[in-house]
């Protein structure tokens, strides 16, 4: 028999209680993992959009609470495009359209001329042309969702569009969305002469960081975003999500630790006499502490693993909702799993601290006399 064998034996004695405690912790960790994966997925899809079409960075309105609320004067966009250190500036208007089955359908307005420069993989048909305001290109996922192909008509925001092409994009936003001429989308949104953002490719010699800094210095009303970590400049969504993640993790730790503490106190209390026997046959106080802590650790780490499994499952289930799958693929970054295991370990240690010290402090004699 090994020390860990003894610990397993102790946990197995109160199967139901062990299982229920584990379930409680596992549910907490499921939430941590699912929300973490969703947040990471959102970050990835937003950053994919930032870099869409090979852009170095995105320019949007500084301080917008959400990227879709960002507005830039086309004049500002022209100013950026005219800079010698900018090779290519692609204006984009982001409109969230309500379609049957997907209330968050991304309708993107592009200038047909600028779109020609974009590296976009066409699966069928062709790109927008300047003379057709009702032309529409569908992302491959959106085409599948609409069941539409080239030559078909699609109704969006009360307008009838003609599908001229199907494209595949690396980012979820565009792949599950559609592209229409910039003017048309501006009309639909009733916001003429403004765009949401500008995708920028820096000119050679390419030093995007310097270009971005120069643009921010010259145009105080804009913010440049090169990656997800800068996203907060134009979208507070992630700050809120990060705060939610932290809150859920802390909540899971708090509730979990109380549950584990309760379980371990009960378990130590029931085994008072046994602990007296262990002390009487020579076990040291620290060894008793180690036993209780190891029991708690085993319970919580196993619960964390179960929680990770359930969390992955839950984040997959979210994808069943088309509205969600259109802009999000959960991302399973190691950090999310590490956080889950860390929550488990902290819960175990905090939960076992008091019970284990209590167990070790028992006088051997009193413990032996305990009925």
């Amino acid at each position: 028999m090994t020390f860990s064998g003894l610990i397993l034996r102790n946990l197995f004695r109160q199967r139901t209680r062990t299982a229920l405690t584990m379930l409680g912790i596992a549910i907490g960790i499921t939430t941590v993992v699912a929300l973490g994966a969703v947040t990471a997925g959102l970050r990835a899809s937003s950053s994919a959009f930032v870099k869409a079409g090979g852009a170095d960075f995105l320019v949007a309105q500084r301080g917008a609470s959400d990227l879709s609320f960002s507005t830039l004067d086309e004049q500002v966009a022209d100013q950026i495009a005219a800079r010698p250190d900018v090779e290519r500036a692609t204006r984009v208007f982001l409109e969230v359209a309500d379609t049957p089955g997907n209330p968050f359908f991304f309708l993107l307005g592009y200038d047909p001329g600028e779109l020609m420069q974009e590296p976009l993989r066409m699966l069928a048909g062709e790109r927008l042309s300047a003379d057709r305001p009702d032309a529409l290109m569908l992302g491959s996922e959106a085409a599948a969702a609409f069941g539409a192909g080239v030559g078909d008509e699609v109704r969006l925001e009360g307008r009838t569009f003609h599908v001229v092409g199907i494209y595949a994009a690396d980012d979820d936003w565009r792949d599950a969305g559609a592209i229409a001429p910039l003017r048309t989308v501006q009309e639909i949104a009733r916001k003429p002469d403004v765009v949401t953002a500008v995708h920028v490719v820096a000119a050679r010699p390419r030093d995007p960081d310097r270009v971005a800094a120069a643009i921010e210095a010259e145009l105080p009303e804009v913010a440049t975003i090169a990656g997800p970590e800068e996203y907060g400049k134009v979208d507070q969504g992630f700050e809120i999500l990060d705060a939610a993640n932290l809150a859920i993790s802390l909540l899971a730790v708090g509730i979990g630790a109380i549950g584990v503490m309760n379980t371990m106190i009960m378990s130590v209390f029931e085994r008072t006499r046994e602990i007296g026997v262990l002390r009487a046959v020579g076990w040291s106080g620290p060894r008793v502490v180690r036993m209780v802590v190891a029991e708690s650790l085993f319970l919580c780490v196993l619960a964390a693993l179960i929680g990770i499994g359930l969390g992955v499952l839950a984040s997959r289930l979210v994808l069943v909702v088309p509205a969600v799958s259109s802009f999000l693929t959960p991302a399973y970054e190691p950090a999310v799993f590490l956080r889950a295991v860390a929550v488990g370990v902290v819960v175990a240690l905090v939960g076992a601290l008091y019970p284990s010290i209590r167990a070790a402090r028992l006088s051997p004699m009193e413990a032996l006399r305990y009925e």
Partner: protein
Amino acid sequence: MSEPLIQARGLEKAFEKGRIVALRGMDLEVAEREFVAIVGPSGCGKSTLLHLIAALDKPDNGRIRVGEHELESGRHLSRYRARHIGMVFQLHNLLPSLTALENVQVPMFELGLGRRERKERARRLLALVGLGDREGSRPPELSGGERQRVGIARALANDPPILLADEPTGSLDSESGSRILDLLETLRRERGLTVILVTHDAEVAARADRIVRMLDGRLLGEEWAPRPEPVGAGAGAQQSAG
């Protein structure tokens, strides 16, 4: 008699803020390899004395020396318990969820033995107490006498020089009781153990080298077992005031 192995002087111990006095100046000396039986009426402090020698509790006054260990120091007591004392309880006190073999291994964790060695050693000890074929049984599946023998095997786990037994036969019928005593006697002979046994049973006590009588937390008297030469009943007994 050379320097005694165990030397207890003026032991005092009270419980419940002094309202219950268990020991009032108890003295005891035990030589190496001696087999001592402690007898006395219920509540006279026999178990308390044993617990103090086992360092399970501390005396309010007085001192205990075991070999070169002074017990009051309060430190390294678990190490002392693990290596020097084997304790046999009246109610075996085995861990119910562990098999006989595993119960015997419990004290060995303090010794830093490898897993194999622990198991081998526990096997040998169970065979020694005649339970080689019950290794996988858990305490609830064993008879009272068998449990007590597992308890003895566990007490011997770390090969201690001293065995303390608190009414080990108290809950057994006389036949199982006498088998336990035979076992203790064999162990003492073969392993050179020093044995202190608390009992209520005169027959059990009669098998010891010496009987220590206690009354009211004090030493009442001592009787040495008759020498091998035949002597009149009780005539060989010596008395000494406590």
